[in-house]
């Protein structure tokens, strides 16, 4: 009985802390559930077809969001994510066309390696030249945009059906789209080991306070390059996902994803100042951002409201995010003793 009495106050603050630390991510989940309920309410026949539409539609943005999250968590920003996606997309479409599944996988691996190197290049340039990364990656976005047009001057190319089925097929039941499994497997296989390792810790440390991290012996340069390389890898995944959803390569297709990815990470609880957030929030946010236009179509709302609603949603989430610490500091001010909690 006495053991229980001691254990209870110890557990409660842990749970409270867990909730507080993940409040934003939980909020994003809540938003997802709310939008989902709304969708099902206006569309009673919501079924496997709709679930699959959602996943196939969200897949490229989800990868783009994870890519941007990796860079932003490390304290940087990458405005060339969309353009790198376009390059990955056209390279894959060009070299997979009229080939079998094995070749497609081989091409994918090469594209992923190329994406990682392209991302690392962003990091190295920003680090070596000391030009702000926002400028470097903006400039690189034009470079990659041009490269995409050189590789494929107009939409074309293709991929074997087996490769397309990686996103558009389903696993076991029609209710589980292959795309979501692919997303979880790829992001999990890369992100979980990173998060658990020293380099992951270094990434967050550099992102939240570069000077403090340096004083603790974290090697800033390699860590930052690593975060850009990781971003490049996931951008390449996004380019491949674009190919899976459309079946062709398109040199201009990637361009919209840079800003959409930034919307998704903000909505998903990644602090643009770095060091705060994860990759699950942005993925869920990508799903939410894909559902909003779908709901507008289903409810027959004027599509011009789409942008307004999307923007309002982001502002609301950021406002709500700013509200929690504000309320906490107020409570502390009223009850001086509560500050230790």
């Amino acid at each position: 009985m006495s053991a229980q009495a001691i254990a209870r106050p110890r557990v409660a603050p842990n749970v409270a802390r867990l909730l507080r630390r993940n409040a934003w991510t939980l909020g994003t989940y809540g938003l997802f559930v709310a939008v989902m309920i709304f969708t099902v309410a206006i569309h009673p026949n919501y079924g496997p077809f709709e679930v699959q539409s959602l996943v196939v539609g969200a897949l490229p943005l989800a990868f783009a969001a994870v890519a941007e999250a990796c860079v932003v968590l490390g304290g940087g920003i990458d405005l060339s994510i969309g353009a790198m996606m376009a390059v990955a997309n056209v390279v894959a479409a060009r070299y997979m066309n009229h080939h079998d599944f094995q070749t497609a996988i081989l091409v994918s691996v090469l594209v992923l390696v190329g994406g990682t190197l392209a991302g690392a290049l962003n990091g190295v340039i920003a680090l070596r030249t000391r030009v702000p990364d926002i400028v470097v990656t903006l400039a690189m976005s034009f470079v990659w945009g041009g490269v995409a047009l050189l590789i494929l001057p107009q939409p074309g190319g293709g991929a074997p059906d087996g490769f397309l089925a990686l996103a558009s097929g389903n696993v076991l039941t029609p209710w589980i789209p292959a795309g979501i499994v692919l997303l979880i497997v790829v992001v999990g296989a890369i992100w979980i080991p990173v998060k658990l390792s020293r380099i992951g810790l270094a990434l967050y440390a550099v992102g939240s306070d570069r000077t403090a991290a340096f004083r603790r012996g974290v090697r800033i340069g390699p860590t930052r390059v690593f975060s850009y390389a990781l971003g490049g890898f996931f951008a390449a995944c996004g380019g491949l996902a674009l190919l899976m959803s459309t079946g062709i390569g398109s040199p201009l297709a990637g361009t919209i994803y840079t800003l959409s990815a930034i919307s998704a990470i903000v909505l998903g609880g990644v602090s643009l100042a770095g060091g705060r957030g994860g990759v699950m929030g942005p993925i869920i946010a990508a799903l939410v951002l894909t559902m909003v236009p779908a709901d507008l179509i289903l409810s027959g709302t004027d599509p011009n409201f789409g942008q307004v609603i999307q923007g309002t949603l982001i502002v609301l989430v950021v406002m709500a995010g700013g509200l929690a610490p504000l309320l906490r500091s107020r409570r502390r001010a009223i009850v001086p003793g509560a500050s230790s909690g």
Partner: protein
Amino acid sequence: MSERRWPKAIGLVLAAGLLLAACGGSNNTGGGTKKYVVGISNTLTGNGFREEMICSIKAQAKASGVVSKVIVANRNTDPSGQIADVRNLISAGVNVIVMNPSDRSALDAVIKEATSKGIVVVTVDQGVTSSDAYQLYNNQVKYATLGADWLFKKLNGTGNVIEMRGINGVSADADRHTGFTQTLASYPGIKVVKMTFTNWSLDPAAQQIKDILGSGLKVDGIWTSGIDSTVVDGYTTAKKPYVPTIGADNDAFIGDLINLKAQGLSGAAVTNPPTVGGAGLAVGLDVLQGKSHPHLINLDPAIWDNQSTSGLSELQNHYDPKLNAYYSVTYQVAPYTTYTKDDLLKCADIG
């Protein structure tokens, strides 16, 4: 104090959002002879051509008398986003989808998905490789050939010309460039001294023509892919003598061809009607009602020049000084569209 206002503000905006969504959800009339639901998919917003295209579809839906509801999926997006939009239209239970495809082959799979569910899919303005869709589009190769041929003839087969294209990497632009290049091959005396991409936007085109006029380059004629009156304005502002100019059937350019003829502007407008959208819906509704149409309908462009009497009278018949500069004046696509010009201009919805 400011902390207290926050939750209120959030609550207000949330309530407004919910209200908006609720209002949007409850306008289903249905019943009677109005039995068809029409879906529109478009992927470029804030563009005059596309807006007029959507208006022509709405006007035709009203004129047909058999449409109960029009659902519009209209946002700036890529083929991947358009696939999602079309799938959403399928989910929303439409009977016919009129779309301006953002890619030639990327939408084939989703078109097949729609047609397998009994939905009639009509692609307008641009073509697709799918054999399941009904397709209505302007022959873009011929669009360029007509204008370029007129221009090169006007220059008696010699001189420096400028090719002002649309958006790099887009199929309509590529087709027009093919037509332009083919025509150029039979006029060895014509030299293309500059090629630009206007992105079918006014600002880049205005800048480009300013740069060209400032550079002192000798220019004898200009072929534009539709950003036309901006080029004429550039010459007017710079007080330079006009050169023969090719444009599209945009209202201000038509006006220029008529009004500036006395000041020495010669040129021609090639038709590229956005009202192909309304024609596409007419075909789609026909198919739903059991009439048959060929799967591929190519609309041949016409050319109206301000030198011949027949061309000039066509220009005068179509010019309407009240319209916006880039409003396309080919109001109807015979024999398909049946709406009134008034409904098109008002962008009338069914009601």
